[in-house]
């Protein structure tokens, strides 16, 4: 790692990228660096640090819109929204504890630009979408060194291509975002969770599928096997039992009514309990920020588990895990996992060593469809195993052309997602 540029205006960003394009010198594009170890390891002499581009530039609660410079800390965004009882409905996760073992007393780590560039989403993904679904407008500097914008500040807009979607989850490989506009929404008045105890993987997925298919507007459904559930400090959890959690949110009377209805409909499957307000919020933060697999210290060590994030059709979550266990044979006992998104998101931790196990994670996916991302691992493993799901050849070729349309010299975070992108 060599020089780090830390511009404080969009003009400076443009000048730095133009220079790098002229020199064909790759640069690492960073927000606040909280997810810098996510992705394929890249070697760049220069980095473009956008953390000095900060500040909320527009926030109109009545209009449900917020714009901020890309490097604005998420802590600042969330504090401003909380003051108006609003929130980002996609419930962005904070990967700080997972990737860097950082404590959360000071609020979430990371920047708004980073959240959209990684297309993060929390448990509410199944109801309200991911960052991509709330990303209304952008301004940035393409790999050509040109300042451009797309989208706007209104929800309903089909004027020109949706370049916001393209930048959501592009990990800074197309442009350096300098300004981000997102849709915000009123935060729910009440949150409450119905808990079901002692279900196995398959039973849990059936219960979650039933809850999601009800008209009770469930906003999250997760399943913690017994070993993981124990790590969440709650006197409400019986010992050594799995926990299936179904969340409802909204106005008080509605939440009461729906919780009662859900308990009634899911009865017979297991013993049930309810978690209210604060306890419910902390349970979902525990799931959202992948706290069960948080790093105990700041550095990834030889003893740390590698962590995978797997997206499958929700109803097939348990089938996937069963298939993986079968293919791992005796090693299956070394795998820890839990489900979010009603079974559609599986967080999986397993020992770093032995590449074959990691290859099994992906090969077991084939019959179900979906994708697996190696979110946390040593640089060595991230060099040897594809971090992002390998793309079909046609998609890979198209992605490479799309990349070139923004970044013809391949200088923006080259190789962070895929070789040649």
């Amino acid at each position, binding site marked *: 790692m060599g020089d780090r540029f830390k511009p404080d205006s969009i003009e400076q960003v443009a000048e730095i990228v133009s220079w790098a394009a002229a020199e064909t010198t790759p640069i690492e594009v960073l927000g606040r660096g909280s997810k810098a170890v996510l992705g394929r390891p890249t070697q760049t002499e220069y980095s473009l640090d956008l953390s000095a581009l900060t500040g909320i530039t527009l926030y109109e609660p009545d209009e449900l819109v917020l714009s901020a410079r890309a490097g604005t800390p998420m802590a600042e965004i969330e504090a401003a929204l909380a003051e108006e009882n609003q929130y980002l409905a996609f419930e962005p996760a904070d990967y700080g504890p997972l990737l860097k073992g950082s404590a959360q007393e000071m609020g979430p780590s990371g920047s708004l630009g980073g959240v959209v560039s990684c297309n993060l989403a929390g448990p509410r993904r199944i109801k309200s979408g991911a960052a991509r679904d709330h990303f209304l407008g952008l301004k940035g500097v393409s790999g050509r060194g040109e300042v451009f914008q797309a989208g706007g500040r*209104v929800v309903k807009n089909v004027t020109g291509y949706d370049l916001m979607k393209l930048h959501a989850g592009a990990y800074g490989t197309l442009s350096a975002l300098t300004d981000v506009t997102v849709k915000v929404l009123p935060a729910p*008045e009440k949150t409450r969770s119905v808990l079901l105890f002692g279900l196995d993987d398959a039973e849990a997925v059936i219960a979650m599928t039933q809850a999601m298919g009800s008209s009770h507007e469930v906003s999250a459904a997760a399943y913690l096997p017994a070993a993981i559930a124990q790590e969440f400090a709650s006197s409400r959890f019986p010992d050594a039992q799995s926990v299936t959690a179904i969340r409802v949110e*909204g106005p008080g009377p509605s939440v009461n009514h729906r919780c009662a209805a859900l308990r009634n409909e899911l009865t017979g499957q297991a013993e049930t309990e309810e978690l209210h307000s604060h306890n419910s919020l902390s349970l979902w933060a525990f799931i959202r920020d992948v706290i069960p697999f948080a790093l105990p210290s700041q550095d990834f060590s030889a003893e740390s588990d590698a962590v995978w994030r797997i997206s499958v059709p929700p109803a097939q979550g348990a089938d996937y895990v069963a298939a993986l266990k079968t293919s791992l044979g005796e090693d299956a006992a070394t795998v820890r996992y839990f489900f979010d998104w009603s079974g559609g998101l599986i967080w999986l931790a397993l020992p770093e060593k032995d590449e074959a196990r990691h290859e099994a994670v992906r090969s077991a996916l084939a019959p179900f469809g979906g994708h697996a991302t190696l979110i946390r691992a040593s640089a060595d493993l991230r060099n040897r195993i594809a971090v992002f799901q390998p793309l079909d050849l046609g998609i890979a070729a198209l992605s490479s052309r799309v990349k070139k349309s*923004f970044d013809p010299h391949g200088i923006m975070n080259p190789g962070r997602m895929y070789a040649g992108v």
Partner: protein
Amino acid sequence: MLMPEPDQAMISRKRELVMKLREIVPGEGVIADEDELRVYESDGLTAYKQPPLIAVLPETTEQVSRVLKYCHDEGIKVVPRGAGTSLSGGALPLADGIILGLGKFNRILAVDFDNRCAVVQPGVTNLGITKAVEDEGFYYAPDPSSQIACTIGGNVAENSGGVHCLKYGLTTNNLLGLEIVLIDGTVLRIGGKHLDAEGYDLLGLMTGSEGLLGVVTEVTVRLLKKPETARALLLGFSSSEAAGELVAAIIAAGIVPGGMEMMDRPAIHAAEDFVHAGYPLDVEALLIVELDGPKAEVDHLIETVSGLADAKGAVTKRVSESEEERMRFWAGRKAAFPAVGRISPDYYCMDGTIPRNQLPHVLRRMREMSEHYELGVANVFHAGDGNLHPLILYDANKEGELQKAEDFGSDILRLCVEVGGVLTGEHGVGVEKRDLMPDMFSDIDLKQQQRVKCAFDPDALLNPGKVFPQLHRCAELGRMHISRGQLPFPELPRF
């Protein structure tokens, strides 16, 4: 409206093209007869007409792929078409190009209630999806007003909305997967039944790309459980400002209604005359606020909104007590366009989006424009999401009125951009708003978008003449003017 100059050499090759295309799509699937081609000469924007050179109606993805590859190899322009309900001329044919109609792709391939999704062909109508799943209590959420006729493939191309967008999102928020065919015949599958496709979000990019990037041959949509109940309030105000204040107050109270629609005085009168929905005629603005969800929630929120309406000075207030009454509230709004059609020989429907709080200002300016152009205007407004549909009244048989209506429309859209909004909320740019794009985007912005187009279609054969006011060659767009220099900002902090 200037379309690219037709290529006479291509037109003179018609017979050969028809023969080759019939080898790919046998039987009736290739239409060459000029009378039969007239069916395709325009879409929902009827002011523009142009029969295509040939219409091709394939039935399989393989045929689409072979047709496109043939067109790619021969340099033939292709305009994809769903049901032809576009209001922006997105499916307007070219004299030297083929129409690729996806109407025969009309099957629902699979419904997966456990994963709450359906896999359908692009020619299935929007409402057809809901019809196929409603027995189990599910529905497909985006509901553009043309939903009886418009196809899901067209919805993907235009990123269609509807009255429930604020709460349930647009097409782009309700898709999981696509199968697309590129102009060179490559068939690609994006996403599936899982959330968030791997790699770049090509699903998001394709949605709303107006048929310029690829042809959609299969769509996987999300299904939602029907809300337990829905109730609506019908509220009259003595000014659009007061109605606007209530909209802001509802959102400030943390409520996201399923639908929130506003009509101005001319629209109210036209609708009432037409369907007798019982709308008050002595108000300046009418607001329909619909709340949907669990019954306990809806009843609770109806009371809250009702209280807010009183506080904001609603002069009439009715709350639906039955499904029949709720439908009656909506009857006038849903018939607003044809109702306006009754009071004027022709009308021109616009589609800008504005920040909600700009509504009174925009309506005031529109009244001034109306006087200037001497043309009436009626407004319906998706108050929840800021999408405005001014209906400009004109008579095409009067010399120069169409032109005046178009100029009026352009002025309205420029005004939308000026107050922080956009040119089109859900109808698309098409040919209609193509030449206004520079009012919203810089030359650099537009060239960047066209570079994305080049990544999909380097010879600009898919739907040329739409969306972009100026066609650039991809090679020219790819060029970079660079001068090697010193490290920038020697004074810049580095770490």
